[in-house]
């Protein structure tokens, strides 16, 4: 496998996120990733389940029980913005371990930086640049931005940092 730079990895992840956004037909925030998990593209029919769980250990985690559908196990009492981000982040693990993701070679490229990649992927899925540019035309407060996109404020700050925007 060719060694890739962070910039190349992020370019690749951005485009994976755009592919899913295009499939969803999402044009304005918030991006409802849970809808995508409930109605996945046909090739992910065996990979995109959601299971609510009571847990104090983590917000969400992806698991694929042997010979069964892969699912994101998500803490049942998470606030909606945290739940949205956690599901989007864990979606990358679902993609990587899917049959199609394995055929693409996603694991070879992304497993070494899984957490960082998953969070970057989620930020791009929930706040893609075209929506971000449209939004920035009429507001500059990070809290408003987080509210509008339905994501945690900390994630909103990171997303604005991704695109080189000063946070107020």
């Amino acid at each position, binding site marked *: 496998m060719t060694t890739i730079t962070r910039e190349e990895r992020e370019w690749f992840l951005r*485009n994976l996120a755009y592919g899913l956004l295009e499939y969803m037909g999402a044009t304005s925030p918030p991006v409802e990733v849970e809808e995508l998990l409930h109605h996945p593209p046909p090739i992910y029919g065996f990979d995109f389940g959601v299971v609510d769980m009571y847990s104090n250990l983590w917000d969400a985690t992806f698991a694929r029980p042997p010979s069964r559908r892969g699912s994101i196990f998500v803490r049942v009492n998470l606030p909606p913005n945290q739940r949205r981000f956690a599901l989007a982040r864990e979606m990358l693990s679902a993609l990587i371990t899917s049959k199609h993701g394995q055929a693409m070679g996603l694991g070879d*490229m992304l497993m070494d930086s899984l957490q960082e990649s998953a969070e970057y992927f989620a930020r791009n899925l929930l706040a893609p640049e075209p929506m971000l540019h449209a939004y920035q035309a009429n507001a500059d407060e990070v809290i408003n931005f987080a509210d509008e996109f339905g994501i945690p404020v900390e994630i909103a700050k990171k997303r604005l940092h991704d695109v080189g925007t000063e946070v107020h």
Partner: protein
Amino acid sequence: MSMQALNQLVARSIIDPSIVQNFAEGSISEVLRELDFTSELRERLAKLSADTWAEFAVLAYRIVKSVEQIPSPIELPSPAEGLITEESQIGKEQVA
């Protein structure tokens, strides 16, 4: 335009198995033919050697990026042609 075409290709590949299948079968040129690449670039991309689709995508990104970073030469009229084009000269003669 080439980077936009590559972006669209990678984006599509996450939901369209035919792209990865074409790559695996060594017939990615058939997919590239449908996209807005110059014939020279298309040929370079089709010759890339990669173990996986993801690796191919990154190698393609490097090539497209390097091609798009080359500044295009500024096109100035030749001094031999003068500043007035033949067409505008004809127009003036007709008015006169």
